[in-house]
């Protein structure tokens, strides 16, 4: 059955139609990125996860982090639990890797803000 989804690659929000029975054919897209999004969203939906972790030795108490690429939606909970178990020690730099290949994905958990020690 053809499924209707809203493309979230950019703010334009194209209303895509994806047909799983016809090799996941995508229509309604305004740019090529919509095709890959539409296919992936039905075959294997992924998201970048952003959150914060505890940090010690700094004026700030939280450090923003993200997965440096999108991870399967089904792994979100598992990854959040891992993120919540981390405590960093200042200083940290944007891009520092905290956990490599988090939850057996291709993504690393990385620091998103330079935080100096106090």
């Amino acid at each position, binding site marked *: 059955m053809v499924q209707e989804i*809203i493309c979230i690659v950019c703010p334009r*929000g194209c209303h895509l139609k994806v047909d799983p029975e016809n090799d996941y054919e995508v229509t309604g897209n305004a740019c090529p990125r919509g095709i890959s999004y539409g296919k992936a969203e039905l075959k294997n939906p992924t998201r970048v996860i952003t959150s914060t972790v505890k940090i010690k030795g700094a004026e*700030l108490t939280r450090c*923003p982090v*993200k997965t440096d690429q999108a991870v399967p939606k089904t792994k979100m909970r598992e990854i959040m639990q891992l993120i919540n178990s981390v405590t960093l020690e200042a200083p940290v730099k944007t891009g520092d890797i905290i956990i490599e290949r988090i939850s057996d994905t291709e993504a690393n958990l990385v620091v*998103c*803000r330079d935080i100096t020690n106090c």
Partner: protein
Amino acid sequence: MQIIKEYQLIIIGGGPAGLAAALSAAQNGLSDILIVERDKYLGGILNQCIHNGFGLHYFKEELTGPEYSKRFIDLLSETNVEVALDTMALNLENSEEWRYLHVMSSFEGYRILRSKAVILAMGCRERTRMNIQIPGTRAAGIFNAGQAQLYVNLEGYMVGKKVIILGSGDVGLIMARRMTLEGAEVVACVEVMPYPGGLNRNIVQCLQDFNIPLYLSHTITDIKGRNRVEQVTVQEVDQNGKPIAGTEKYYNVDTILLSVGLIPENELSREAGVPLDPRTSGPIVYENKETLAQGIFACGNVLHVHDLVDFVTEEAESAGQAAACFVQSGGCVKQDSKIISLKTDSNIGYTVPQQIRIDDVEKAVRVFFRVRKIFREPSRIVFRDQLKSEIASFKRPFMFPAEMENVNLPRQLLENISGTELTISVEE
């Protein structure tokens, strides 16, 4: 009045607008620039916007808020722009030659600074429960969404366990996801308008991903709870926004997050006598972001509320360039330039700029605006002069109030209009 220090340009606010404005002014030849920031860090609201999606237009990649501001902070550290952190701007005064800024900080005390030009980049603040008059008790547990975002993302406090969100603005949607990921239960998002206030991508990624229902044309009509919020009543509203009897739904929640709009923060502008536009709640500006008060420029959310930081950056760069030009040559605009006022029909909420000095337009002027209702079918954005002649028209496949639109008006077209007014309208 004892003037403690003098600058070419003072920028009030060190968020995305202030940062880009400072860089642009420095790149355009100013050497004596100060940013005044009331927080301990540069970056403004981006520091608490830890989600990604920033920079798609400007950097062609998706960044988190702190990563986006870092790009500008790093570039700024290579210039000699001076930054006064933890410093509150108290009062702005305008005169022919100088702009006077009164500032206060715990380490330098009360100071009066003056500069040739000022860029307003103070951003905006959230509308509160008091602004929208929700009935009910004054229990704890009612937060503005952005305030909750600060507690959760910067200070590491959870603000509740069972949450309802009023308003579908982007901050509210982002917080629905954030609270869910951190273990809270978000029972619903309730929007009084018949369409969502936030961007599509946020509806999908923040609500649909977590099966959080979005109730359009609904609002909160009662809040119960003695110390902490215990229950809220949600009702459907009719076309006039009046609650419909018999549609009550009850939610037992301990927390309400409000995402009910943003107000540009223009107290300083008002004191300085900068004329404001009631439609944007920001200053009226010309094509180069100069306000009607000489030497004072504005950009970012203090000028009008944006949904994408990328556009804030672009706007700020233009303001920075114009301010540099003003300082170096007393303004790049000929005094006798023809001025065109932009008017709107009922389908359009506002435009920025509101006035265009033709002589200052190099090739084209970019006009930003918001539509006031959803246009699902292809429609045309039409500019007409005072004789109702069509000057320019632009096609759009669809338009949403949540998404700011913009068009480029070529100078050539502006030169040929009759009268001094252009009306922008949507024709289906």
